């Protein structure tokens, strides 16, 4: 059975895995973005809080994904829970870092002007600072998503959902007829998903970044 025949016979299973993979990454990314921006907003004004947030999130990233999931299993059990927890934690770092950099990069003269014309603190944040910091935040989200695509594959190790199952099954049955096809289908599927997500981010950027500050 060559690769194309394999795809033809297993397409339903593959599509289901791909859908679950995308869905897991998407949902975790939404949570990571919301949390990351909130952490960024809470931390950017103070030197040490900002440093603490970036250091903490980078430390998380240095833990190998496999080890992280392994460590989470005794705590939250098998299946979806460790996957979601790990993906969200990994997704945080680029978002938090870019949110802090973006918010700190807003021209202080503009913040001064916003204060001077009578904007309250929350209004300043929502209508001036966050919109101006949005392009770097979106870049962070984009980078994080690419990263999570790969990390999500490892979730299969803890019986999580997604294309990782194909890859792990292939590795487990190395030497058998379909082993290579399975690994290939899983890997290529992840690459295609990553490219699709990236295209969507370009579109989101077009729609959400005001023309006045688009590069």
């Amino acid at each position: 059975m060559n690769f194309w025949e394999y795809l033809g016979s297993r397409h339903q299973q593959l599509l289901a895995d791909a859908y679950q993979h995308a869905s897991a990454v998407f949902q975790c990314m939404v949570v990571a973005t919301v949390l990351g921006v909130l952490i960024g907003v809470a931390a950017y004004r103070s030197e040490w809080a900002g440093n603490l947030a970036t250091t903490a999130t980078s430390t998380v990233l240095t833990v190998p994904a496999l080890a992280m999931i392994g460590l989470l299993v005794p705590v939250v059990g098998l299946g979806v829970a460790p996957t979601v927890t790990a993906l969200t934690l990994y997704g945080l770092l680029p978002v938090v870092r870019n949110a802090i950099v973006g918010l700190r990069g807003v021209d202080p003269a503009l913040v001064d002007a916003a204060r001077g014309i009578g904007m309250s603190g929350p209004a300043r944040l929502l209508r001036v600072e966050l919109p101006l910091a949005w392009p770097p935040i979106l870049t962070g989200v984009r980078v994080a998503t690419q990263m999570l695509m790969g990390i999500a594959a490892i979730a299969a190790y803890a019986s999580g959902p997604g294309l990782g199952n194909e890859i792990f099954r292939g590795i487990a049955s190395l030497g058998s007829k379909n082993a290579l096809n399975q690994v290939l289908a899983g890997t290529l599927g992840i690459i295609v998903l990553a490219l699709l997500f990236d295209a969507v981010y370009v579109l989101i950027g077009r729609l959400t970044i005001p023309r006045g500050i688009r590069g």
Partner: protein
Amino acid sequence: MAETTSTTPSARSSGATGATIELENLTKRYHGNPQPAVDNVTMEIAAGETVVFVGPSGCGKSTTLKMINRLIEPTSGRIRIGGEDVTDIDPVGLRRKVGYAIQSSGLFPHMTVAQNIGIVPKMTGWPKSRIRARVEEMLDLVGLDPGEFHGRYPRQLSGGQQQRVGVARALAADPPVLLMDEPFGAVDPITRDHLQDELIRLQRELHKTIVFVTHDFDEAIKLGDRIAVLREQSHIAQFDTPEAILTNPADDFVSGFVGAGAALKRLNLTRVGDVEITDYPTATVDDPLQDIFQRLRAGGTNEILLLDKRGRPYKWLRRGDLMRAKGSLARAGTLVHDTVTRDATLRDALEAVLTDNAGRVAVTGRRGAYEGVVDMETLINSVHEMLEADRLDALEHQHDLEESRAGQTRPGQGGGGSGERGAPA
């Protein structure tokens, strides 16, 4: 603004939409610095008046300005706007009633021109239709075509246009007070000149109370009804009309700041319309040659000003000119290449007189029609008179001040009056 040479500020404030500003013993100390950044400033600004803070960089003029809308909270002292004590009210509410324009415009790059201008009315909860109408009105007011600029983003505007939009935004909610922190500091000199003229025109229509910060003394003279020359820690070295500061600087610091050429700068403060414009023998191109000959012979001067068909100055004609040109009016005489209007400053007039080989310039009125002539002698005489009058005014003023201070300091040592401690005792 500049033509109100001798009127007192309070006399101009009738019908003004501005509000008074009173600063009382305003002090700002920063943590860990024993010297206060702003030390005990006391100042009263009349409604509808333009006051310029001028001083070297780091003298605290900007800090003083920012304490008026409490962008910087004063350590001690009171601020009253329109008689109301605003030192402890909600700063956000206060700032919506005080327009604020800064250097490099401070426009939000992610909002269109219309959104930028409409932001304060929107925050104060105006209905949409009213905001839209107000935005158009403000764009019109600052001389930008609403249809063209409405939907543009700040980066699509030139520096001067951005600055205009910045002023429009500051004025959008119709605040009685306008604070301007070196608003024209970052634009080129020609644009700056335009913007200053525009501000003078605006102020003539609106009568806001404007506090303007600059380090450019010429800008201060041009814009201010009164100028506060500040030295370090915002100590007031002199707080007076531009005329008084130019002719009678309080001390060496002020005269150093005024710089050389105070008399020349004084020329900027008087208009051609304020000095004596002399009549001159004239003739029009349609007059018969015989008449023109007659007038040349009869007139006290040996020269006559020839006007064109619409009464505009056309040529200077000397006695011999017609002979030399063999009686042809078209070839005789020298063309008039420079005229001034009644609204021109004496400095412009002097410039024109100096470049003219015979030392005079024609003054024109509506549609360039001839009104009279100003010559070197008139200019010199009026400048002398002006300076003399200024000096007398200043002496009298100083005398009054000394008397009131003598009366003040005796009962309560170190009480009020410290606001003008820089003035000579």
